[in-house]
C-alpha cells in the first residue's frame, strides 16, 4: 500500500517539474479514492450521498490550487489527508453539522486502491459553472468538456494564449471561492 502512495508522490513530483501527463494522471488516480473517503464520511453521518461528487470536485480543485503547500521532500499522504479532511469538515459544517468529524483513518482509505465507480462517471449536483462570467465559463467549458487546449481556445476566441490561461486560472479560483461560500 505504501508503494502505491509513493507512486502518487513520484507522479506529483514529476508534475511539479513540468510533466503535464503525470499531473493529469495523479488527479485521475486521486478522484476515486476521494470518492470512497467522502462517501464513507457522508454515510457515517447519515447524509445521503448526492453531494459526494461536489465534495470530490471541490477537493480536487483545492489540491490543485494549494499544491505548492506540499513540501515535496515530505510524504504526500499526510498532506492529502489534511486537505481532504479540511474539505469534508467544511462541507459537513455548511450542512449544519457541528460535531467533530472523526476521520482519522482517512489516510488508509486514501491509500487503498479504489472500490467505487469508474473515474469521473458521476456528475456534480450543483452546476457551479453557471456562476462564472460568460467568457470564463466559455473558456472552462471548451477546455474541460470539449477537451480543447488553451491554444485552440485562444484562436477560437481571438485572444492570446496567455490571456486564456489567466482567465482559466481566475475562473478556477472563483469556483473554489463559490464552493466555500455555498
Amino acid at each position, binding site marked *: 500500500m505504501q508503494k502505491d502512495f509513493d507512486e502518487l508522490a513520484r507522479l506529483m513530483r514529476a*508534475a511539479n517539474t513540468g510533466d*503535464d501527463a503525470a*499531473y*493529469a494522471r495523479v*488527479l*485521475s488516480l486521486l*478522484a476515486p479514492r476521494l470518492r470512497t473517503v467522502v462517501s464513507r464520511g457522508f454515510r457515517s453521518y447519515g447524509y445521503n450521498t448526492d453531494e459526494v*461528487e461536489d465534495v*470530490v*470536485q471541490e477537493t*480536487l*480543485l*483545492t489540491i*490543485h490550487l*494549494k499544491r*505548492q*503547500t*506540499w*513540501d515535496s521532500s*515530505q510524504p504526500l499522504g*499526510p*498532506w492529502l489527508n*489534511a*486537505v481532504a479532511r*479540511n474539505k469534508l469538515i467544511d462541507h459537513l459544517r455548511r450542512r449544519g453539522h457541528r460535531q467533530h468529524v472523526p476521520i482519522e483513518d482517512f489516510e488508509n482509505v486514501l491509500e487503498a486502491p479504489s472500490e467505487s465507480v469508474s*473515474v*469521473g*462517471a*458521476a*456528475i*456534480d449536483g450543483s*452546476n*457551479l*459553472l453557471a456562476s462564472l462570467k460568460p467568457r470564463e465559463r466559455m473558456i*472552462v467549458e471548451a*477546455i*474541460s*468538456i470539449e*477537451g480543447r*487546449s*488553451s491554444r485552440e481556445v485562444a484562436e477560437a476566441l481571438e485572444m492570446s494564449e496567455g490571456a486564456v*490561461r*489567466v482567465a*482559466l*486560472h481566475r475562473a*478556477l479560483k472563483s469556483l473554489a471561492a463559490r464552493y*466555500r461560500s455555498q
Partner: protein
Amino acid sequence: MRTDDLIRALAEDRATPVVGPQRRVVLALAGGGAVTAALFFWLFGMRGDIASALSTWRFDFKLVTMAALFAAAMIATLRLGRPTANTANAVRPILLVVLLLLAGLAAELVLVPSGDWSARLFGKNRFICLAVIPLLSVAPLAAILTAMRESAPASPSLAGAFSGLLAGALAAILYASHCTDDSPLFVLAWYTIAIALVMAVGALAGRTMLRW
C-alpha cells in the same frame, strides 16, 4: 461538469507559472516593510543620539531581541502556512526569543537597584509605544495576510496571529530605533502588549481571510 472534465481543466491550468506561497509571503513582507519604513522615517525617524545609543548594551539588546523575534516569527508563519503544520514545531523558535528576553530582564534586575525598577518599567514613551507599533504594523500585516491566502494553514486563526507577530516584530524593530526607553523591563512590558494587540487583530482577520 464531470470530474474527468474538471481534471482536464486543472491539468491545463498547471502550465501557468505560479509564485510559491512561501515566496509570496517574503515578497509581501518586503513590500509592506518598505511602505512602513517610509512611513516611519517620514513621521518619526531614528533617535538623534543613535550613534552613542548603539554603544550601550540595552539599546543593542533591544534591537537584537526584536530582530530575533522577527526571524522566529518568519519561520513560524511560513511553517504554519502548510495544512500539515505541526504547531509546536512551528512555534518553537519563539521560545528561544522569550528566553533571551528573560535573560535580559534578569540582567536588568541585577544591575538596577530595586528602587529604580518602576521608573524603568514605565519609562517615558509607553503610550507612544502602544500606538506606534500597531500603526507601523498595518501595512505589513495587510500584505502578509493577503499573501498568506495562497497558503493553506491548518489553523487560519493561528496563522493569522503569527502573521501579526511577524508584522509587529518588523514594526518593533523600526520603533526601537526611535524610542529612548531601552530598559529590558520597558521592552518586555510595552512592546509585548503592543505586539500582542497586532497578533489579536491578525488572528481575527486570519479566521476569515485565511480559510481555504
